[in-house]
């Protein structure tokens, strides 16, 4: 799909022939993120649809306690040190960003008075700056006013290398932040930045901490700040108690900046245990009101739901379970490393073999038999109406066709049924982490491959090892010392730019960079690199989207990876809860202030 086709689609949305949601879904199917799709619509003047709340209270509080369950417990309460989503979520109870992303990827102002856009002139036409107008009369929990100084301070705090903030990513693109008045800041970027929202939006990197409590603890002293464990924020709930690895408690903030919110008097976020019993506590016994990240087999969820006390809430996000095909030779050592970028895979470098493998992954059965509602075959690439589909991103499961392709390419079956050519056999090692659905997927793929004369050796590595960043351990996913490997890559970040890093030639994972870079397949393509660089500075969201679609097509066309299933986000919600809307692009608590419960 090129730019012209995208524009036609946007026009259809404008005229009402295509729904907004349908458009966003299509874009997600093409490998874009919802926030980017929303940006495309906003830039062409399509009005934003606000999330509607069913319950509109006339006073604050009165809702008693809301009990939530995270099976991974939060370990710290400084958003800039968050080790994972569990910490970001815990921080989001007390702290807020300038804006959040709703389920359709719209930028919804929280501490900002309005969302910046090209139309209201707050986003500069050249993409070099964005102006944020902050909400007035917002107070920190200790009564001090929230001002532009706090926003500027957050950038300084995060940028100090001695602070070692994990949220530094998007802040590095900022040259300076000008304070225009007490409640207006202008963020100036190094180069044209199409996705200006990255720095101060969303729970992952955007939450604002108070300057007056952290300024003495910047850099080396950052870990001594007492507020690291006792947050003072602007959020709907005030801090009561925190035990790392166990529980976080909060109480209603009587001076919250949204009128008549929040509904609950107390909030509790209990951590620990396992996903299945967390699902039970919400869906079956109703002991808790909400549980995060239900990595539970769909069959179990369905059985629990029969009681009617709760339900599994499934929302599309950007996680993709996919199989990577090694471009380099994992079995030859060059300069002390295997899978060296200097080598070429002896067999997988033949496009016919790649095509055959692509035809042998039975996504339909994998969804049906393993994942159910919690993993949708990436049929999105083709199932969207035919005019949206780019020609080269079809998937099908067809062993006969795979056989024909291999036969035509000269791969002949040997006595053992395994195909070979020039003495090289079609034998691959296929690795993944230990996780029941993954082993079942491996088995399905292996069975199909054996029908086409390809022999797969299955290898499973403990998740702890597989995903570790130990440069000395050859079994990690970043070493990729096998022919094929499978895992889920997360596209939770609202902009695909950083995510698409993983196919650029300068990101090739190797011994020199301690296998820390993101290009695990070691695939290199000049056309892709050019498109990536162009997207980095392209200010027209539609042109930029077309570039991402092109990058996506290149990866699929060349069968660098074989997508298997999309994995949506699944939460367990009590049936008495109202307005608990999940966003696939932000924290589970992005709209916590609006949650309520029926009596």
């Amino acid at each position, binding site marked *: 799909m090129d730019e012209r086709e995208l524009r036609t689609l946007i026009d259809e949305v404008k005229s009402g022939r295509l729904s907004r949601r349908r458009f966003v879904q299509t874009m997600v199917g093409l490998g874009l993120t919802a926030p980017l799709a929303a940006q495309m619509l906003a830039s062409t003047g399509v009005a934003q649809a606000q999330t509607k709340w069913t319950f509109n209270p006339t006073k604050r509080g009165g809702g008693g306690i809301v009990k939530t369950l995270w099976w991974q417990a939060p370990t*710290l309460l400084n958003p800039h*040190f968050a080790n994972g989503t569990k910490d970001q979520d815990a921080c989001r109870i007390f702290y807020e960003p300038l804006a959040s992303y709703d389920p359709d990827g719209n930028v919804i102002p929280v501490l900002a008075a309005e969302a910046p856009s090209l139309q209201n002139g707050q986003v500069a036409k050249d993409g070099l700056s964005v102006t944020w107008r902050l909400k007035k009369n917002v107070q920190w929990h200790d009564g001090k006013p929230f001002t532009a100084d706090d926003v500027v301070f957050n950038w300084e705090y995060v940028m100090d290398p001695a602070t070692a903030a994990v949220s530094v*990513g998007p802040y590095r693109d900022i040259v300076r932040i000008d304070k225009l008045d007490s409640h207006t800041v202008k963020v100036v970027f190094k180069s044209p930045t199409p996705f200006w929202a990255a720095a101060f939006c969303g729970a992952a990197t955007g939450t604002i901490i108070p300057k007056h409590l952290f300024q003495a603890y910047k850099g080396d002293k950052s870990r001594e700040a007492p507020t690291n464990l006792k947050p003072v924020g602007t959020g709907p709930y005030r801090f009561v108690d925190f035990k790392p690895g166990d*529980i976080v408690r909060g109480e209603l903030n009587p001076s919250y900046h949204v009128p008549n919110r929040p509904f609950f008097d107390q909030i*509790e976020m209990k951590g*620990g245990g396992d996903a299945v019993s967390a699902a039970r506590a919400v869906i079956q*016994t109703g002991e808790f009101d909400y549980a995060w990240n239900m990595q539970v087999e769909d069959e179990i969820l369905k059985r629990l739901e029969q009681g009617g006390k709760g339900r599994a809430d499934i929302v599309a996000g950007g996680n993709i379970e996919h199989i990577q095909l090694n471009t380099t030779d994992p079995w030859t050592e060059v300069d002390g490393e295997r899978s060296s970028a200097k080598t070429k895979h002896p067999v997988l470098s033949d496009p016919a073999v790649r095509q055959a493998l692509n035809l042998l992954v039975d996504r339909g059965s994998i969804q049906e038999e393993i994942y159910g509602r919690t993993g949708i075959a990436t049929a999105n690439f083709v199932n969207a109406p035919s005019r949206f589909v780019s020609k080269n991103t079809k998937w099908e499961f067809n062993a006969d066709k795979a056989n024909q392709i291999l036969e035509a390419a000269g791969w002949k079956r040997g006595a053992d049924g395994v195909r070979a050519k020039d003495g090289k056999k079609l034998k691959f090692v296929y690795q993944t982490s230990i996780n029941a659905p993954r082993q079942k997927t491996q088995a399905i793929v292996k069975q199909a491959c054996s029908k086409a004369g390809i022999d797969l050796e299955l290898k499973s590595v403990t998740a702890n090892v597989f995903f570790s*960043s*130990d440069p000395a*351990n050859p079994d990690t996913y970043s070493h990729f010392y096998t022919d094929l490997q499978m895992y889920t890559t997360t596209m939770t970040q609202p902009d695909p730019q950083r995510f698409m890093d993983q196919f650029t030639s300068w990101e090739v994972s190797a011994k020199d960079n301690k296998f820390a870079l993101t290009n695990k397949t070691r695939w290199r393509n000049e056309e892709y690199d050019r498109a990536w660089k162009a997207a980095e500075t392209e200010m027209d969201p539609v042109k930029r989207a077309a570039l991402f679609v092109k990058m996506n097509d290149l990866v699929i066309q060349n069968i660098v990876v074989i997508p298997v299933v999309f994995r949506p986000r699944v939460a367990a919600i009590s049936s008495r809860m109202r307005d608990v809307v999940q966003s696939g692009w932000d924290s589970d608590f992005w709209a916590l202030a609006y949650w309520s419960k029926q009596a």
Partner: protein
Amino acid sequence: MSKYLLRRTLVSIPVLAGISAVLFTILALAPGDPFEELATNPNVPPEVRMNLRAKFGLDDPLPVRYARWVVSMMRGDWGFSFVSRVDVDTLILQRLPATLVVLGSALLLAILVAVPIGTYSALRPYSIFDQVATTLAFIGFSLPTFFTGLLFILLFSIHLDWLPFIYRADIGATGWRWYWEHLRQAIMPVAVLGLFQAASMTRFMRAAVLDVIRLDYVNTARAKGLSEATTLVKHVVRNALIPVVTLVALQVPGIFGGAIVTEQIFRVPGIGSLLINSILANDTPVVMAVTFIFSCLVVASNLAADLLYGWLDPRISYR
């Protein structure tokens, strides 16, 4: 006796040093990385991770790291959690009350169940009561706590809906309700742990009473005209308790081990769940501190058992 105590304490120092060296090496060699989650998140630049590793001294050679740990340990500094960015001793102190409450009540429950049942079984060996008690005891210690725990949850929380299966250390209530809520949530974990220990303790108690009850001084006591109750309490049970007490002392570290699993099942925020979470998160300083505490417990309870034995039975002398 004090000389003996001093010598035993001195001997335990090299033992603990050896244990700590082994623990440290194994933890250092084990795969995994505390900043693993940052590695798989494409939003976090790799430099941040490298910077953190350098800051927490993870890139230094093993002997250097061990030496640093020993030195700070001597100064009473337990280290700093990579994951929570808090001092390890604060973390442990936060978790200690829950563990002590659950383990203490479980131990109490075990004694309250085991001593009367064991004694009564021994008084009427091979009676129906003894047969039933023996069968239950065998079932009790052959079923692991993680299994009985799940069984209890299924029965009492899910089928009957009587008890909560998620333990909350902070309960937002006051007065009687606070005690009531705590009691309700503690019933299952305490019962699971307590009954498991009670099972083996009943068998010890029965055997010990059987040994004592046939001795001449018991007959003498009866012949003197002492009531059956006095004979039993003052002469039989008191002497029978000697081996049981030492066994209980030796079992204490084992109970901590069993509690790890039970704490995980019921989400009790104790030391055991701290250990599991830290292992999963590769938070080495915390794992090191908790396992070291466990090994100190083993050494200390061995010593305590030896001392108790001598104190209860004056025939034993220390050399």
